[in-house]
Each structure stands twice: as structure tokens, then as C-alpha cells.
């Protein structure tokens, strides 16, 4: 009844995502979201549309037969163009300006408009002269954003009785400008021989906004309504603070109707209180000043357009109800699923969602699930593309009481419909190992609103998403593998290498292994030139080649997540695939004694942004494919060779946002996600073990096979040698020590696109060097129980010697953690 239990636990839209998957299941998922270009009516946007890369990991662990633990981790990095305002087309908010010779759209949110007597905007030549006729076309004013990363972790601890369950959970979501913490309680009761299930839950979320206002539009935004919530920064920026609380409750009911059908239904309620604005959205207000009407056309008006931060109510009550039906279709061995959801809130929004999918198994472990979804919502009562106010606006002085209490031009609050469709293809490899691939296309259109009357087509946009998930169910795997092979695997892992060593062992014929590797590395503190500490004056003078340096990196952190999939077609040849996802963040500070900002490129307009915001990037990185060849396998001594390629899937053209009419340019080499080149990665590994002792050594290298990547440069080649020794402390735990020497060349060539060179990290000579590290690690093998055969490793690499090329930030060290399971 596993599926039934799961069904009862997952009433979509009502149940807090609980321990949904089966017991002892681990999963990892990558997703990519890509938006299409926005229609700007005559202006071609120079901004890249929004894209989001996300990584998700989840696990369900059975602590005892009745106690279940579930955890989820998600991170996403987004960047791209987003609407900051809506205005009549004649405002020319996206006009192409090139005072700095760099062509690109800069959001213009202040300006002038002319109206006829009915307040229809009149068409001008762009220089204040009317050219005849009205033009009511609206358009979004776009702004762009540098990449930003959000990370979220949550857990759930549950207890199950024979016919009931209860769980408690919580989590935290962190991003630069928004933090939210949540707790929840859930319960389930089964009746009627488990044909009927009642479920319910309560949740509480507390969120803090700490939004740094866009430097580019800051001087042009009226923030008067939020003065008490605004903090002013040393660099002249403004940070809006706000907090909100959400309380939620839901009740769900599911019922088996007959041996082929079940129904689920439920209601939910959420009460929200506090700051619910989008801090980056403004509303254009056309102020018609009686004293300026000498500029007005005959029978018309002249307006001075100002941008005000949007204002939403501080309270929201939301109700939703859903009704789902699932039917098994005997003739096709398929499942048909319908779901309808009705939503109502006191902001005036009513919404309907219809979803349907057809799950069709195809045999040999394959299944395909096409799905379709339609969503329609009314506009919020206070949604308005722009406002007109018959009063003067004089340097922020005006009567706010003559504006509505709330106003927003966020298209998410407009009336529209959205149609989406997609397909999920799933393949079960071994019993308990599943790969799911999904695709979806989504189109948001005012014209698709149920009953008509939606927003104009200027708000229309579309996106597509792809995702891939690997799920491993250990219970199913264990039950499908026989006992003797199990013992064999345990033996194999008795001599595990330190967690930071890759390619440390081979599998025997028909072996299959899945694993996950995590690596974190950190840099911080002082700057080094070669091995020597250097002060700000030296960096200013010498760190940036022929130019002066203005900023220096203050901290850098990198997190890398790798999937490790290995298969042994024969004893002497193993194949490996290692997709990677990574994210990086850095902070910077001004260098003391640097020349004035006006001497920096673009008059240093990006410097405040650099030193106050820091930078983040994240997404898919290069993928490794390897073949390992057995050379020697003589009792206590093993030798194998690896040949591999690193395929350049990682982006090497990530840009910083435009600011003050100046391109941000590419973010520096160290924050790009890949090497940009096809790389050859050979290795030779020796391992030995005797009694409780194990040892090994490895030589590995990275040779760039191309002269340069798409953005014009090539990272330095790498050569690394390492040796280690380990000792089994108990039959399941071992400790190890190792030494590593690494040498990496400087970057060859340089970016062939614009980069705003402000600090040492922007110069190719300040990369690579010679590094000595000592590692301390622990490895554990689960000796028995359901999780037998799982191995875990952790290692800290401590730098003991650093000899950098050029000027770079000192190293703090790196942490590796691994999990592997062979079957």
C-alpha cells in the first residue's frame, strides 16, 4: 500500500510536502528555466531574458520502523531581465541610449507625457513635440540583474502508527535580499481499512526583506512612502527592510472509490501580514501640475512622470480548494489524473487551475507522462499599469492622500491566463534506480484569461523548463541484490581513499555505483603576491598590470556538487560520468590609497555595486566522462589508469548587470562556471592495503585541448600529485592523512568581450600557482541494516604552502564530502 500511503500524504496544494517518496530513497535533480524575450514594441532589448538554474537534493531515512526523517535541499541561481515598471509607449522607457558609446537599453522611469482630454497618451517625436494621434500602447520597462543565488534547506520528522501519522518540520530559505524561516505540523488518519484518509496541517513562516535598491534607478525612484524602512549605506545606496508573517492551515481528504479510482479533496487557508511588496517594482505616476499646463496641448494635459515604489496591502487572506481524481485505465495499464483548484483572496483575485496528466508505462522500465495545465486569474483590485494624479510633484513634495492607498503594476497581479504543457519520461534502470526527464512549455497571455478582459499583450511572456532527476531507492536495491555480492562490495570499500581523491577504485564486472561528491573551498583574509603578504598600496600599484587597482576580493566561496555514476562492463574497463553543478560567491572591498573612482573604467560607476553587493554565480558546470583501465591487480597492490574528457557545459560568458548607463561586462574568470574548453584529464592511481592499513598515490592532470573557449581565454593546465595513508579504526570507520602538491598555469589569453577591470581578479596573470596541502579525513561504511554498503567520506584539505602567480587572495582550505553506493 506504499502508493496509497504516499497518495494520502501528498494532496497537492494542501499537504505540506511531506516524506513523499518511499523510505530510504535519495534523489538529486537539476532544473533549468528559460524565459523568452519580452515584446518591447520597436526596441530590441539588449538584456538576456531571465534564466534560472536549480539543484535539488532530497532524502528519506527510516530511523526506526515508525520514525521517518526527510530532508530537502534546494538552491537556485537566477539572472536576466525583469520588468521594473509599466508605462505608455511614448515614455520610451526602453529607449536605446548611447551617451557612453555602449549601446544598450537603460531603464528610463522619469519623463514627460502628453494626454488628450480623456487622458489618452498622445504620440510625440520623443523630444516633446506632438506628432498627432493617441497611442495607448503600454510597455514594460526592463532592467537587468546580476546572478543571485537562493539556498533552502528543510526537514521533516515523522512518526507512523498503524492507521495514523504525525510529523513536524521546519526549514530556512536564504538569499541576499530575503530570508524566510518556517515550521509546520502535519497529521494523517486512516479509516475504513485505509480506504479513507483525512489529513491536516498547520504552518508558520516568518520572512525578512532586506532589498538593496537598484543603483541604476535609485536616483529616479520616489521612496518617500518607505522612509522609515530604508537604511542608507556608506556607498550612497538604499536598503528597504520589511518583515512578514504567514500562518497556514489545511485539511485534506482522500477516498478510494473503487479498485481503479480514487478522489482527493481539500481546502487551505493562509493569513499573511506585513511587507508583501516586491521591493524592485515601481509604479509610474503621471503628475498633472496645474502650473505646468502652459505646455499642454489644446484640450489636453501635460504630465511630469515620476516613479513610486509600489504599495500593497499589509494583510492578505487566501483560501483555496482542490478536487482531484485519479483513474486507472485497465486497457492501457495507464493512469489518468485530473485536478481542479479554486483560489480566492481578499486582494480581489480569483483563480482557477485545471491540470491533467496521463501516465503511461511502456515496458522495459520506461514510462511517459504527458500533461497539460491551464491557469487563469483576475487582476488584484489595486493592480494598475500606471497612475494619473491631478497635482504638482515638486522634488518629492505632493499629497500622497490623493493617490490610491495601494497600487502595483506587477504583471503577476494582472488578469491573465496561462497555458502549459509538457512531458515526463522516466526510465527504471535497476530495481530502485530511476531517471526522470521532464520538459514543459508555458505561455502567459492576457488574452487567455477565463471570460476575457485580461491585461494587454505587452505583459505576455513564455518560458520553457527542463529537468532531470536521479532517484535511488536503497531498500529496493538491497532486496534485489544477493547477499554474497553485498559482502564483496563491503570488502572493496574497506580500503577507501580520502574523500577528496577521485578515481580511487574500480568495480568488478557488471558492477554499478552511484555517488555524490560535494566540495567546498574558501579563500579569504590577506592578499598574497607569490607567497608574500602584500598591503593595499602594493596591490593598487602593481596588482592590475599597467593600470591601477581599485578593489580587492575579500572572500570567495565555491560549492561544487557532483554526481558520480560508474559502470563496469568488464573487470578491466570501468566507465564513469560525472555531471557537476556549482555555485560561487565573493565579496570585495575598496583598496586604501586607490585613485579616485573617476579614474577607474566607466568613472567607477560599478564600484559601489561591487563592494556593497558582492557577486554570485551558479549553474551547471563542465561534465567529466572517464574510462578507467586496470593495469595491475596483485593481492595487496592495485594500479589503474584513467583517461577522460571534461566537456565544457559550464557558462563562461556570465555578465554583471548594467549600471548607470555602463555595461557591467563579464564577471571575472574565477566566477565563470566552466573552463570553456574541452579538457583532457588523465590519471594514474596506485592503491595498496594490508591488515588494517591502506595507502595510495595518484598523479593526475588537466590539459586544455583548445586554444581558447568561446570568450577568448584558456585556463592554465593543471598537474597534481598526491599520496595518502589510512588506518581502520574499527570495522566500519577509518582515518586517513594525505599530502597534495598542485601546480596550475596562469590564464592564457583574455576575455574577447568587455570586462570592467577594477581588481586583480580581472587580470589573467593573477591565476594559478603552486600549492601544497595536507588532508585529514574519515571514511565510514555502514556495516549492516538497510543501509549496509553505503559509504561516506569527509576530508579537510589544509593549505600549508602557497606560491601564487601574481596577486591573489589567500586560501583558507577546502572540504570534500562523499557518499557512494555500489551494487
Amino acid at each position: 500500500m506504499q502508493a496509497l500511503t504516499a497518495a494520502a500524504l501528498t494532496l497537492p496544494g494542501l499537504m505540506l510536502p511531506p516524506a513523499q517518496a518511499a523510505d530510504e530513497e535519495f534523489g538529486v535533480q537539476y532544473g533549468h528555466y528559460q524565459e523568452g524575450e519580452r515584446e518591447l514594441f520597436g526596441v530590441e532589448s539588449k538584456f538576456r531574458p531571465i534564466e534560472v538554474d536549480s539543484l535539488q537534493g532530497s532524502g528519506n531515512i527510516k530511523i526506526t520502523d515508525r520514525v521517518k526523517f526527510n530532508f530537502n535541499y534546494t538552491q537556485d541561481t537566477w539572472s536576466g531581465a525583469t520588468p521594473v515598471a509599466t508605462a505608455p509607449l511614448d515614455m520610451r522607457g526602453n529607449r536605446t541610449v548611447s551617451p557612453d558609446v555602449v549601446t544598450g537599453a537603460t531603464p528610463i522611469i522619469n519623463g514627460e507625457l502628453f494626454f488628450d482630454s480623456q487622458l489618452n497618451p498622445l504620440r510625440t517625436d520623443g523630444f516633446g513635440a506632438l506628432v498627432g494621434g493617441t497611442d495607448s500602447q503600454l510597455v514594460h520597462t526592463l532592467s537587468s540583474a546580476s546572478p543571485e543565488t537562493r539556498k533552502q534547506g528543510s526537514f521533516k520528522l515523522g512518526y507512523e502508527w498503524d492507521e495514523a501519522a504525525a510529523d513536524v518540520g521546519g526549514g530556512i530559505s536564504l538569499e541576499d535580499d530575503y530570508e524566510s524561516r518556517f515550521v509546520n505540523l502535519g497529521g494523517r488518519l486512516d479509516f475504513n481499512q485505509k480506504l479513507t484518509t483525512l489529513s491536516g496541517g498547520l504552518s508558520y513562516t516568518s520572512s525578512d526583506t532586506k532589498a538593496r535598491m537598484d543603483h541604476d534607478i535609485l536616483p529616479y525612484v520616489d521612496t518617500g512612502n518607505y522612509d522609515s524602512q530604508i537604511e542608507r549605506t556608506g556607498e550612497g545606496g538604499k536598503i528597504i527592510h520589511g518583515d512578514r508573517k504567514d500562518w497556514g492551515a489545511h485539511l485534506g481528504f482522500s477516498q478510494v472509490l473503487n479498485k481503479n479510482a480514487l478522489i482527493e479533496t481539500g481546502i487551505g487557508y493562509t493569513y499573511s501580514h506585513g511587507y508583501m511588496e516586491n521591493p524592485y517594482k515601481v509604479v509610474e505616476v503621471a503628475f498633472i501640475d496645474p502650473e505646468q499646463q502652459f505646455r499642454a496641448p489644446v484640450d489636453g494635459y501635460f504630465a511630469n512622470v515620476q516613479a513610486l515604489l509600489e504599495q500593497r496591502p499589509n494583510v492578505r487572506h487566501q483560501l483555496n480548494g482542490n478536487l482531484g481524481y485519479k483513474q486507472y485505465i485497465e486497457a492501457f495499464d495507464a493512469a489518468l489524473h485530473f485536478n481542479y483548484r479554486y483560489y480566492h483572496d481578499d486582494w480581489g483575485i480569483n483563480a482557477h487551475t485545471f491540470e491533467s496528466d496521463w501516465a503511461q508505462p511502456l515496458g522495459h522500465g520506461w514510462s511517459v507522462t504527458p500533461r497539460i495545465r491551464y491557469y487563469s486569474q483576475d487582476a488584484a483590485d489595486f493592480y494598475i499599469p500606471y497612475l494619473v494624479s491631478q497635482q504638482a510633484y515638486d522634488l518629492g513634495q505632493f499629497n500622497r492622500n490623493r493617490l490610491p492607498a495601494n497600487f502595483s503594476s506587477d504583471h503577476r497581479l494582472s488578469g491573465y491566463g496561462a497555458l502549459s504543457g509538457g512531458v515526463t519520461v522516466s526510465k527504471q534502470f535497476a530495481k530502485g534506480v530511476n531517471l526522470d526527464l521532464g520538459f514543459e512549455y508555458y505561455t502567459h497571455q492576457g488574452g487567455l484569461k477565463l471570460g476575457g478582459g485580461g491585461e494587454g499583450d505587452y505583459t505576455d511572456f513564455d518560458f520553457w523548463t527542463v529537468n532531470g532527476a536521479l532517484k535511488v531507492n536503497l531498500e529496493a536495491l538491497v532486496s534485489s541484490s544477493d547477499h554474497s555480492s553485498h559482502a564483496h562490495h563491503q570488502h572493496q570499500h574497506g580500503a577507501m581513499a580520502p574523500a577528496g581523491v577521485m578515481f580511487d577504485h574500480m568495480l568488478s564486472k557488471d558492477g554499478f555505483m552511484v555517488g555524490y561528491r560535494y566540495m567546498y573551498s574558501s579563500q579569504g583574509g590577506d592578499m598574497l603576491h607569490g607567497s608574500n603578504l602584500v598591503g593595499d598600496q602594493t596591490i593598487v600599484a602593481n596588482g592590475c598590470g599597467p593600470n591601477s587597482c581599485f578593489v580587492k576580493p575579500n572572500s570567495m566561496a565555491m560549492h561544487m556538487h557532483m554526481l558520480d555514476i560508474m559502470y563496469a562492463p568488464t573487470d578491466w574497463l570501468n566507465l564513469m560520468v560525472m555531471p557537476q553543478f556549482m555555485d560561487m560567491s565573493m565579496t570585495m572591498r575598496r583598496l586604501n590609497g586607490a585613485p579616485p573612482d573617476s579614474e577607474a573604467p566607466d568613472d567607477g560607476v560599478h564600484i559601489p555595486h561591487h563592494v556593497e553587493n558582492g557577486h554570485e554565480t551558479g549553474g551547471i558546470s563542465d561534465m567529466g566522462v572517464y574510462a578507467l583501465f586496470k593495469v595491475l591487480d596483485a593481492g595487496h597492490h592495485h594500479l589503474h589508469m584513467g583517461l577522460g574528457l571534461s566537456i565544457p557545459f559550464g557558462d563562461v560568458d556570465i555578465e554583471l548587470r548594467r549600471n548607470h548607463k555602463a555595461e557591467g561586462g563579464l564577471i571575472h574568470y574565477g566566477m565563470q562556471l566552466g573552463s570553456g574548453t574541452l579538457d583532457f584529464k588523465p590519471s594514474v592511481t596506485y592503491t595498496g592495503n594490508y591488515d588494517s592499513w591502506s595507502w595510495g598515490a595518484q598523479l593526475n592532470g588537466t590539459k586544455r585541448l583548445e586554444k581558447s573557449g568561446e570568450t577568448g581565454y584558456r585556463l592554465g593546465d593543471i598537474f597534481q600529485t598526491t599520496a595518502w595513508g589510512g588506518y581502520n579504526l574499527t570495522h566500519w570507520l577509518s582515518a586517513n592523512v594525505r599530502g597534495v602538491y598542485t601546480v596550475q598555469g596562469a590564464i592564457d589569453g583574455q576575455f574577447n568581450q568587455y570586462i570592467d577591470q577594477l581588481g586583480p581578479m580581472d587580470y589573467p596573470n593573477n591565476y594559478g600557482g603552486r600549492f601544497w596541502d595536507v588532508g585529514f579525513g574519515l571514511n565510514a561504511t555502514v556495516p549492516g541494516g538497510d543501509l549496509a554498503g553505503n559509504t561516506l567520506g569527509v576530508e579537510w584539505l589544509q593549505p600549508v604552502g602557497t606560491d601564487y602567480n601574481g596577486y591573489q587572495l589567500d586560501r583558507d582550505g577546502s572540504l570534500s564530502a562523499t557518499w557512494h553506493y555500489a551494487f
Partner: protein
Amino acid sequence: MLNTRKALLAFLPFLTAGLLGCAEVAPWERGNLAKPHMALEPYPMQSTLRAHNYSSREAAAGGNAAEGGGCGCY
């Protein structure tokens, strides 16, 4: 404010729909219901991701805001 009576009426169908009726289905007759593709949520991770995409793009995501999900301020 919500009109409580109206709201209750609107949501009444969701409360009562489940009581429509049910036949006795013995445990040994539940094989079809137990198939993986009959689970209400066969792809929970994918559903979470899709829900996150929708919630950052649609106004009606609330009502199940139990899970953080971030600002979605873009």
C-alpha cells in the same frame, strides 16, 4: 475582508466531494491503486520544482505557503 458566508459556500463542494460514495475494496483488490503511476504524486521532486516556477509567476500560489520558497522578486 473575505465574505465568510460566501467563501464557505464556495468551498463547500471541496469539503463534501469526498463523501460522494465509495465501494468496498478489499486489500487484495487494490493492486491497481498501488501501482507507482497511480500515486497522486509520482514525481515529487519535479512537482516541487514546477510548483516553485508557478509560484514565482502566479498570484494564486499562496494558500499553501508552508515551505519558504523565497521572495521570487523578479
